[in-house]
């Protein structure tokens, strides 16, 4: 029992776990993740694809064994940190004792020692009196470096997993001028959207107006990639965009008028028999010398010369037609006027927990600070006696030794 506990908390076990996580990550990065089964069959053949999916390598980072490895790493880190903590707390005293007990490493005369002491004080060492003389110490906070590093890794793993496991995102599209109502009644109105800014640079920005369910809070913000809107417990991202056709329909018989967005093929009809069948919106066209049109289907996202491909259906006869913006087709008492297309945003709405995110980002900061302590705040003690000095540290402190040698050698001005 004790032996297995010792193994569980050992650095060797920790390193084995890290190697396994690393090896699986390599596999996960080489095999495309979360694709359809057919993609794997096409890429690797049926037999290998079956094996691959049986092993869960199509979603490797969520397999039970990958998560179990993470869990074991957490346990290993926790045990290792807890069990080493008392030693960390007493490490300063221990180093002082070692310094006091150490024998003189570098003999010096009194002038050299004086220069050295000045050097030590000017380099952040604190003088402490000891039975054997003076001990100058520095960076004892650094003793906590590796403890805090491991603690912060645990922290980030824990809160990072919680954040990743509780994603509450929804992807929605909204037409300019229209609004979305979220489950708690929050309303998000898209006031406008543009792909390019005034100078023709790609911008993808939506102006949103968010209003809380009780109407007491509201916020207007232009969002774009990298600039989401935070409103209540939501974060709203500019995720995608699209271009939709628009048609104004006027019914002279009832003297009514309506404007519709056309995002997919549809049949616009009042009686279900006669009307306009919208097939697609094209970004541009080319017209040859004989007046024939070739429709352009580029994917750059802009619609410089939009054109609607439609069919008019009247009395059982269907005719293919191209309609250009501001062109009106009249079918009986109904006018269909095709308008300039509208660009619209695809928004990602995320439910955020400020506590979880705050904790995660705190972990990030803590780890950076802890690593700094580990690497750049190396604890050291210099025991100075009448005949010389000695340097002690749990780590290599070549720089201090060299600097002290140089400081000692310097001629007095």
């Amino acid at each position, binding site marked *: 029992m004790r032996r297995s506990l010792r193994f569980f908390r050992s*650095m060797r076990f*920790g*390193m084995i776990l*890290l*190697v396994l*996580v*690393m090896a699986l*990550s*390599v596999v*996960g*990065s*080489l095999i495309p*993740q979360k694709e359809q089964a057919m993609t794997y069959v096409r890429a690797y053949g049926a037999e290998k694809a079956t094996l691959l999916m049986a092993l869960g390598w199509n979603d490797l*980072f969520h397999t039970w064994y990958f998560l179990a490895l993470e869990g074991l790493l957490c346990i290993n880190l926790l045990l290792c940190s807890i069990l080493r903590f008392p030693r960390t707390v007493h490490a300063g005293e221990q180093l002082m004792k070692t310094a006091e007990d150490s024998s003189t490493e570098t003999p010096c005369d009194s002038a050299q020692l004086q220069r050295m002491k000045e050097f030590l004080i000017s380099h952040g060492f604190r003088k402490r009196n000891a039975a054997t003389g003076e001990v100058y110490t520095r960076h004892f906070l650094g003793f906590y470096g590796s403890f805090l590093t491991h603690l912060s890794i645990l922290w980030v793993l824990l809160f*990072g997993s919680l*954040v*990743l496991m509780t*994603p509450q*995102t929804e992807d929605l599209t909204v037409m300019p001028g229209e609004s979305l109502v979220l489950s708690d009644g929050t309303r998000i109105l898209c006031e406008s959207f543009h792909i390019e800014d005034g100078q023709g*640079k*790609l*911008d*993808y920005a939506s102006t949103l107006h968010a209003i809380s369910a009780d109407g007491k809070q509201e916020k207007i913000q232009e969002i*774009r*990639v*990298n*600039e*989401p809107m935070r409103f209540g417990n939501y*974060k709203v*991202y500019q*995720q995608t965009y699209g271009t939709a056709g628009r048609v104004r329909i006027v019914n002279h018989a009832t003297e009514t008028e309506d404007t519709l967005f056309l995002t997919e093929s549809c049949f616009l009809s009042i009686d279900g028999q006669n009307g306009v069948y919208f097939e697609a919106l094209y970004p541009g066209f080319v017209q040859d010398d004989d007046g024939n049109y070739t429709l352009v289907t580029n994917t750059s996202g802009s619609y410089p010369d939009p054109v609607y491909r439609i069919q008019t259906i009247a009395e059982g006869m269907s005719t293919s037609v191209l309609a250009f913006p501001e062109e009106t087709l009249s079918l009986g008492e109904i006018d269909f006027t095709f308008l300039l297309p509208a660009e619209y945003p695809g928004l*990602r709405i*995320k439910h955020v927990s400020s506590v979880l*995110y705050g904790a*995660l*980002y705190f972990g*990030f900061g803590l*780890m*950076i600070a802890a*690593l*700094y302590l*580990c*690497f*750049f705040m190396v604890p050291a003690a210099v025991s100075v006696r009448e005949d010389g000095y000695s340097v002690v540290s749990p780590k*290599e402190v*070549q*720089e201090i030794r*060299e600097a002290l040698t140089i400081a000692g050698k310097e001629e007095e001005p």
Partner: protein
Amino acid sequence: MSILFFASLIVYFAAAMVQFSGVSMKKAGLTRAARLLFMVGFALHSGYSIWRGIVAGRVPLANQFEFASGFAWAIVVLGFGLYRKGKAEWTMTAAMPASFLVLSYAAFQPMAIKDLMPALRSTWFVLHIGSAAFSYAAFAISAGLGVGYLLMLRKGKDDSDSRLKQLDYLGYRMVCLGFLLLTVVIFSGAIWAEQAWSSWWSWDPKETWALITWIFYAIYLHQRMRRKWQGKRMAWLSIVAFILVIFTFAGVNLLLPGLHSYATQG
């Protein structure tokens, strides 16, 4: 203005050659001349980067060419910094060819200056990419020192030799710096990804390989605490680790496209 870029490339090459001659013939005058050349190359390189930054209206680190150029520039800065501290000739012997090789890689990338694409317009851009350049540079120097260590060992030096110990130690210190900066790269990337795409981690190949590299260096740091691993084994580890860095930097863009694939655009 690209003349400045190519001039710096040539000068870095010349510096590396003069340095090799100086070190192998043990001529201090030659190594001094190499450092001077390296400084000239650095001035030309900096001039080019500043010009490019002014023309682009942003920090020139936005695509594979600019990043590689920044990476080479960071190697020179760290090389000089480390040399100033320890006066170890091997820091320069490692930094000179490393900066030349990385800049040569840049020379094969599309050099056109383009607008920053919307996903890159972020306050995190400079921190994330700047720390990546310096982190990779520290790892490059550490690997260079590892090569130096192995070469000196082959020449019959004993591993208790003080110069070898210094190389081993400097290589370790560079890994410490690189590791800290790589942690900054990963975290700033996570925060940025959350701002841009809503998820702080998506197991995108670039992210995954940065993590793989980070774990490898974590293993390096732990293994170094074992006395018998110091020296030769650490030198080998630093070289293997740097191969992972290169794969994260260039290989992923070429072979494993993902969210970061904009980095390959010219």
